[in-house]
């Protein structure tokens, strides 16, 4: 690693000897002229001001540095930057007001068939798509603010959209108000870190067929439908926060056809459904906090081989719901605030198993209309009766070693 740094520093130093810095000031087509007149390796120092320019194609290795956040405005008609060369850097620009089109995806910054592109500390405002990476590799998208004020998910595009990419690093971005905050399709071996994705119309994070990706320390807050993860294997999600994804059809995390993945040490707070699992195989859910959710876990019968270990379940309306009678997933050593067993040998583990599925959760899962009786006296009596005489809930669905006290996560 150290060598790599020294190497790149050397490259930079030697490069800068050859390369020149071009100062760009506002004027008719100033940027376009500067880009076309520059030579590979040059740096454009863009001075503050408003640049009414669009469809700027960067087809050679350039570094475009904004000074004092210059504004590039596409006047609600055109796309912003199109990057088709490797190793381009765009930094410190405010790119705004792209056009909208239902035929082509118009983006603030589009990277197409290129590698090693860096997009850093830009503001991408009110663009249909914010940053659009297609067939890109080893790119860094870092510290950008991507915001749009779309009203519905049909007109809008995604904040950071990546298609058929590899080894991306998406970190410390703030994405809001788009259709999907971050959208991945066929993106592999990438890292998503420290991003805040909030108040997007649909999903804060949405990915499909994107294997071997790692999601760490991101916050997904108040998105229309939370986070959806589908048809992917080997996903790692750690230290993320899924919070306030609270709506009629909102998920903290929707997992569909996910295989061999790890969901560790995340916090799920106040989501309608914290984790929904459908057709998943061997997913381990460990050391997460589930607090104040409507449903903490909805595990469909099509899921199998998952392990739920060492999680805290606190203040959820329903801890676990399922639609089948068979349960092929295992629950071990979790803390359930609804557990009312005892611990005679004082080993901090309850002596009788905990059945985390409530009858009413089972019934309302089968027949959603039964939700009309939510919180009625009848349902609480049913819970009590079921505790004494279990008959409806799947009996394999239990935690044999429930913890007596909240776990330190």
């Amino acid at each position, binding site marked *: 690693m150290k060598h790599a740094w020294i190497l790149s520093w050397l490259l930079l130093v030697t490069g800068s000897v050859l390369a020149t810095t071009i100062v760009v000031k506002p004027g008719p087509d100033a940027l376009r002229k500067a880009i076309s007149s520059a030579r590979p390796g040059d740096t454009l120092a863009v001075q503050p001001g408003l640049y009414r320019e669009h469809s700027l194609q960067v087809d050679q290795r350039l570094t475009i540095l904004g000074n004092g956040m210059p504004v590039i405005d596409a006047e609600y008609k055109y796309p912003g930057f199109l990057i088709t060369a490797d190793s381009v850097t765009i930094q410190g620009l405010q790119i705004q007001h792209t056009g909208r089109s239902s035929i082509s995806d118009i983006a603030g910054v589009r990277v197409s068939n290129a590698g090693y592109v860096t997009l850093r500390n830009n503001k991408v405002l009110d663009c249909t798509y914010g940053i659009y990476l297609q067939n890109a590799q080893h790119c860094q998208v870092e510290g950008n603010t991507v915001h749009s004020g779309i009203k519905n998910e049909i007109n809008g595009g995604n904040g950071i959209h990546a298609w058929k990419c590899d080894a991306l690093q998406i970190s410390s971005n703030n994405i809001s108000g788009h259709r999907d905050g971050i959208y991945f399709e066929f993106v592999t071996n990438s890292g998503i870190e420290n991003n805040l994705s909030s108040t997007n119309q649909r999903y804060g994070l949405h990915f499909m067929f994107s294997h071997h990706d790692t999601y760490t320390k991101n916050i997904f807050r108040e998105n229309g439908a939370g986070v959806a993860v589908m048809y992917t294997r080997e996903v790692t999600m750690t230290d993320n926060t899924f919070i306030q994804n*609270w709506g009629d059809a909102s998920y903290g995390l929707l997992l569909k056809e996910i295989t061999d993945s790890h969901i560790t040490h995340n916090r799920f707070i106040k989501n309608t459904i914290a984790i929904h699992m459908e057709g998943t195989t061997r997913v381990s859910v460990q050391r997460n906090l589930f607090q104040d959710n409507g449903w903490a876990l909805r595990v469909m019968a099509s899921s199998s081989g998952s392990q739920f270990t060492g999680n805290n379940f606190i203040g959820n309306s329903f801890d676990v719901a399922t639609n089948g009678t068979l349960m092929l997933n295992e629950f071990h050593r979790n803390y359930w605030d609804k557990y009312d067993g005892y611990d005679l040998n004082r080993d901090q583990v309850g002596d009788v198993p905990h059945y985390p599925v409530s009858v009413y959760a089972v019934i309302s899962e089968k027949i959603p209309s039964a939700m*009309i*009786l939510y919180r009625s006296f009848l349902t609480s009596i049913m819970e009590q009766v079921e505790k004494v005489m279990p008959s409806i809930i799947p009996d394999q669905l239990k935690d044999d070693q429930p913890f007596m006290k909240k776990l330190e996560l």
Partner: protein
Amino acid sequence: MKTIIKYVLIDLLKNRTILIYTLVLAVLTISVTGMSDNMSKGMLSLLNITLLFVPIISILFATIYFFNSAEFTELLLAQPIRRKSMLLASYTGIATALGLAYLAGVGVTVCILYNSLAAIALVVGGVLLTLIFSALALLIFVVFKDKTRGIGAAIITALFFTLLFDGLLLAFIYSFSDYPIDEPLLAFISLNPVDLARILVLLQLDAAVMMGYSGALFKKFMGSATGSIYTAVCMLCWMVIPLILAVRVFRKKDI
């Protein structure tokens, strides 16, 4: 009529049961609000307390009171006053006393602490339930001659609305789950004032999301302003219709 209301209130505000009822509600409210760390949970607990206590206490207490004051009612009816005025005046008196007990026990604390739309819905719901179950008690009083039977009927009525009705509803939902039953459900739920009160309050809370999760029609409808008004109107009907029936029966009743 005003005179009778006034004296019924004078009598009831010194009534031990009313005072204890107020006190129990107040203690429950304060402990529940003190224990729950957020408003939503506190409100849910208070909702459950309201749905459980208000119907049964209102109907039982009112029924017993009506039967106990049957002789005094007779004496008053021997005076030159209308039967209707007499009946409605004692109803107003008792419903006011019980309503005030609820307001003092739950309403004040909730409105000061939470002061939200949900809190208002809870207080409105609780007061409406009080009015409704006092009206049902009045109907029981005019229909039954015998106090013991009247009390029996009161208990059954309260039990029916707090528990049995929901059981039947669940059985209905279960048996017809393959059909679109959202609209019939909406109609059925209007037949139970306790469910109406529950939904009126729930839909003002975060918990509403859970009820609407399946995209249920009733949530969309009941959650709207029109829905809230509909709920309130239904509940008012639940108060007015028993009163009208009671007055009708009482007009021809031999005392």
